[in-house]
């Protein structure tokens, strides 16, 4: 456009600068404080002057806390979540879109409803299920009377118990019980030309062959977007990892960071070390966001949170 919009553009720059300062401020403070020594911090208090003790603070964290192990836990859990999510969402969407089945609508509705209620609304009972995932099996045996039959035959009442608490699978699985991703792939498959599968069928390709050789390569960028969003989502989870992991060795990095105690009451807290811990916990997801911007933005617009 040829018109002049200087006033608006200046205002836009001011708004954006303010927004970036709001976002960057806590991050910069964290980084700067993480470089100061505890002695300087006690003497000077809050200061914007970077120090030279970043590595010292990091080594304090590594030596005195469980954070290194917990960061590894976060990597494992987030990778697991992202991988499983990509697979199950892709397969479900494939089943709904590419097969002529009467129950396709039911499956889709069942999956879609899950987005209404996040885990935070049902974690009390989800915890009970996770503490014994055989619960439905027991209930089924009781309900159908099979339990009685087994008791008559074998002499003892069947009650199976399998806890997934304090395992990586237990950290990840309940967080995967939602429709994120299924909707994404469904929309994508429906946007592809119908001739694609028609041609594949004419060439004699079965459903598995079509999925593997045609659909998967086509969906690469969708996989990338979903994987990154799920990884970041897993990394930043808090409530579920807090209750599902009972030992510090199994807790995730974010939970561990929030549990770092500010030290002895009455003394100035070891804030430089705590901030160094915050840097360690946040550096992996932040680097991912800064360098894989395109996929993340795509993922954010395609998935609903």
């Amino acid at each position, binding site marked *: 456009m040829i018109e002049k919009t200087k006033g608006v553009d200046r205002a836009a720059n001011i708004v954006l600068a303010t927004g970036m300062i709001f976002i960057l401020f806590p991050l910069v403070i964290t980084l700067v404080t993480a470089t100061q020594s505890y002695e300087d911090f006690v003497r000077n208090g809050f200061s914007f002057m970077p120090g030279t003790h970043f590595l010292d603070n990091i080594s304090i964290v590594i030596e005195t806390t469980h954070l290194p192990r917990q960061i590894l836990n976060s990597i494992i859990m987030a990778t697991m979540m992202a991988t499983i999510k990509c697979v199950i969402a892709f397969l479900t969407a494939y089943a709904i879109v590419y097969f002529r089945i009467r129950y396709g609508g039911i499956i889709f509705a069942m999956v879609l409803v899950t987005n209404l209620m996040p885990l935070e609304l049902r974690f009390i009972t989800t915890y009970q299920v996770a503490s014994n995932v055989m619960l439905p099996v027991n209930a089924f045996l009781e309900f159908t009377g099979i339990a009685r039959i087994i008791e008559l035959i074998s002499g003892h009442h069947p009650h199976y118990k399998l806890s997934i608490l304090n395992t990586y699978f237990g950290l990840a699985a309940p967080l995967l019980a939602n429709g994120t991703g299924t909707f994404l792939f469904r929309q994508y498959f429906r946007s592809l030309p119908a001739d694609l599968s028609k041609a594949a069928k004419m060439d004699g390709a079965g459903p598995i062959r079509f999925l593997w050789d045609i659909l998967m390569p086509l969906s690469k960028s969708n996989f990338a977007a979903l994987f990154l969003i799920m990884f970041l989502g897993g990394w930043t989870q808090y409530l579920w990892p807090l209750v599902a992991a009972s030992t510090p060795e199994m807790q995730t990095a974010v939970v561990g960071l929030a549990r770092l105690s500010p030290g002895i009451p009455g003394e100035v807290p070891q804030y430089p070390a705590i*901030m160094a811990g915050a840097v360690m916990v946040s550096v992996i997801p932040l680097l991912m966001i800064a360098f894989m911007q395109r996929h993340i933005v795509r993922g954010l617009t395609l998935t609903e949170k």
Partner: protein
Amino acid sequence: MNNSQFHRRWLPLLLSLPQLLLIILFFYIPIYMAFFWSFTLERPFGGGSQFVGMQNYLRVLTDTEFWMAAERTLLFMVTASSLAVILPLFLAVAADRKVRLAMPARNILVWPKGIAGASLGVVFLFIFNPFLGILAPLNDLFPGIWQPGIDGKDAFVMLVAAQVWSGIPFNFVILLAGLQSVPASMHHSAAMDGASAWRRIRDIQIPMIMPQLFLVFVLEFTESVTGAFGIIDAMTEGGPGGATTLLVYKIYVDGFKGYDLSGASTQSTILMILVISLAAFQFFYLEKKVRYER
């Protein structure tokens, strides 16, 4: 699409089985159980249960602490989610223009997506520490003006600030995507009719992204009810004096610290009903007022 679909009886069910098992086990069964438990007295550590009818609801609904938590949840919902939508709206409108800061802003404003609410809580707790943080000089001048550890209002403000910070990326990205899909021809014709850039923002851009604004509002409402947990636990643990105990935090404390499983389930059920009816209200009532014309 008939010819383009495959005909198999069991394969599609097999393919969707992993997903179905997960949502049945960790979504439908827990929700059913929460509902069921809200009518029983559940003893911790598997000590059996007893049907008690509406007693749990009576107990919860006559508890003043429940109503205080509900009120705070509502207040938090309204303040945090309006700010978490309005600020990104300003930022998105600004970033939609071809200005120098638009490119770096589009990158940096997404960064909070990688920071957990609880991590931010740890950092905010330090920054807003009344004696060591950035407001310490202010406290030296006017003692007692900022004390989030004692004054519930200060703690609440801190919570809202942290929630808004965390909510910026998603809302910004969605609103910006909406703005960018406004056809350039609309801008051009409005400009030719003499509409200034300000006028076009108000009369073209904002009305055109109403669907996106609606979407982020709906999602932000739920998010403010549930997502604040990490921030609360890391920053205030519900204090001081319960001033930041939102319902989601109260449920956690009652269930996991007080072993009151029936009470926690009852409150979960009430919160679920609240969230669902809000979503239903927004979809069936408000959505009619949102125009999707393109």
